[in-house]
């Protein structure tokens, strides 16, 4: 049995607990948020391991979901994995997640808590949004206290671009997958920091070969007990970029109408919690929100996307939003064009 507590910028306190000892990567995902101290008044508790659900007096939906006020439970399955999850305090108050399930294959053996830890992301996003801080699916770098955010669907070369901005133009890393946007500043939300660090030092792009995966795993395991990764102070957001890859040859950068940019950001977040067919727990979260809203249609969870839209409209006021369309294959010319554009701002 072990417990690890994390403090996300004093905005959220999270405790992860597991029945069982072996887990090479227990701290890897959220190491940037501490993990050494015992925190009081945690907002989210994630218990990993077998549990007995308290799903009495629930509505039973679609042969699978148990729902009552502030509560959801289900047994679910995706591609090569099964899980059982119970969320107490789903809509408000302190949230306790009981989660049983792990990845299949070697990943599940070496890192049996990764699947459960990944499931924290939508809960963190929802909880932060309730307090006017917005977790956005994007990477971020800063220079001279000015932050630049790069959002986009997976595979848009966000991470590669961020690596190049750090390596070639002395930008500072704030996150390559998610960031927190607040009214006056941007906060980092680095996850799997050592994996990014390995890529930064050893790979030209984010495209991983088999050997990269093995070597990055070794690197992560070697680093797993070092927890002194500094979080950079809040930065002022200078510009936000939405990146897409095209079947074409040119780099195009255009300013988007503000509301169109916000709509794209919302869809970008939403699409992270939806898959066409079930794969992992995180991509079923949108469904869990819908199931809960079937029974409690006027709840805070059902209003999350509207809340996120209104919130981003408010906090990103006066921030220009650009769209970068880049060729399918990444090359230095793309980086130079984007850096030139940033410098010209």
């Amino acid at each position, binding site marked *: 049995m072990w417990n690890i507590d994390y403090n996300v910028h004093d905005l959220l306190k999270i405790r992860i607990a597991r029945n069982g000892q072996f887990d090479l990567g227990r701290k890897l995902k959220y190491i940037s948020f501490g993990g050494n101290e015992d925190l009081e008044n945690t907002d989210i508790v994630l218990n990993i391991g077998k549990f007995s659900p308290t799903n009495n007096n629930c509505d*039973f939906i*679609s042969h699978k979901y148990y729902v009552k006020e502030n509560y959801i439970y289900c047994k679910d399955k995706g591609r090569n994995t099964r899980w059982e999850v119970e969320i107490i305090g789903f809509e408000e108050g302190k949230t306790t997640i009981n989660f049983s399930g792990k990845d299949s294959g070697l990943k599940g053996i070496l890192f049996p808590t990764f699947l459960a830890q990944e499931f924290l992301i939508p809960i963190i996003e929802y909880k932060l949004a309730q307090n006017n801080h917005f977790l956005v699916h994007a990477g971020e770098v800063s220079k001279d206290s000015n932050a630049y955010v790069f959002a986009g669907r997976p595979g*848009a070369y966000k991470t590669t671009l961020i690596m190049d901005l750090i390596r070639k133009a002395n930008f500072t890393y704030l996150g390559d997958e998610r960031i927190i946007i607040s009214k006056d500043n941007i906060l980092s939300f680095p996850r799997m920091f050592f994996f990014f660090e390995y890529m930064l030092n050893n790979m030209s792009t984010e495209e991983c070969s088999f050997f990269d995966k093995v070597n990055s795993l070794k690197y992560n395991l070697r680093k797993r007990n070092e927890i002194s990764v500094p979080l950079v102070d809040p930065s002022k957001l200078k510009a936000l970029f939405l990146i897409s890859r095209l*079947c074409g040859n040119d780099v195009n950068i255009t300013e988007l109408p503000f509301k*169109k940019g916000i*709509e794209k950001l919302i869809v970008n977040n939403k699409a992270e919690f*939806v898959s066409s067919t079930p794969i992992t727990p995180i991509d079923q979260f949108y469904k869990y929100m*819908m199931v809960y809203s079937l029974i409690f*249609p006027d709840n805070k969870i059902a209003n999350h996307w509207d809340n996120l839209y209104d919130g981003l409209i408010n906090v990103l006021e006066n921030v220009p939003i650009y769209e970068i369309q880049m060729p399918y294959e990444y090359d230095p010319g793309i980086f130079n064009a984007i850096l030139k554009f940033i410098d010209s701002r």
Partner: protein
Amino acid sequence: MIEKNYNVHDIVRFKVIANRISSRMDIEYRNFESSVVDEPDFTVYLGDFTPLNEGCTILDKTYYIKEDYFYCKDSYKLGKWQIEISGFEEKNTIVRISTNFIGEVFADMFICAFIVDFLIRFKMEEKGYSVVHASAVSKGGRAYLFPSHSGAGKTTTALYFAEIGYDLFGDDFVIIHEGNIINYLTPLNIFAYNLNPILLDHMGLNIRYLLKLKNMIYKMSFGYVKIFTKVNPKEVFPNQVKSKSKLNSVYLLAQKDAFDVEKINKVCIINNMFINQMMESGPFLKYLLEYAYVFPESCVAKYWDKCKANLERNLGDNVNLYSVDVPKIYDKETFNKMRRITECGI
């Protein structure tokens, strides 16, 4: 090449063109078959194709999107498919689908349930009709709608009513338009949990044994292989099919411990039916989102807003609205209570 034409009440017309159409797909839309359709709303080509991905934005290394165009490869369990939609926002949409062997054999599950069913609904909604996840019956010119999520008693309710002479409009989806119910008769999907005694009476011995075998396969595969038995409601109740009837009451079904009924307001029922529609959109929930990322102001991106507006309009203002809790075991006694509230009020 085989060309099959389908006409859903002169509202949505579509064609399926293929070298071979599996029997399970053939059964699925038999009630909409037509000798010829002019100006189809969409045409489905089954078989291998080369996608026209030039100039597309590529999302998640999977979704290829340009204006009016969508392409991806996808899979579920052992079934795999590629889909290309050209003219996504046009009147005549061209859909090309290529599947692996499993996808072809179980075409009802992969091609119909995941793709064509949604396209019919998509075109219906574009034309202002709502296709809702509900069953419906009617008697004496008054139609009763039973929306619910899966497993709350839609099919059972409709079959019990049909057994006592009510006209059947559909057990899974029905069309609503300007306060009227229009039938949407697709096959009943029968599995062990919704095998109603009424259906057993209409089944031959061979189908009963097949049902048992399918249930055994389901258990032996730990829930991985789930094969439904298709029963055409028109064959079970040949004289009880009407195309249209005035909507009188809506009974939103939910599974609870005991039977209960109470009035519900229109906002609540629309929210529930709307979320239910989204939950039943299969892989298109994702496909629409990915398209919306590239074109957030397109009709496709606004599709769900359109569905909600359609629902508000089509449900009408003079309809009685109730929520009904039904117990997990939905038997004749439960149905008698259901019948009493539809015929005598609450």
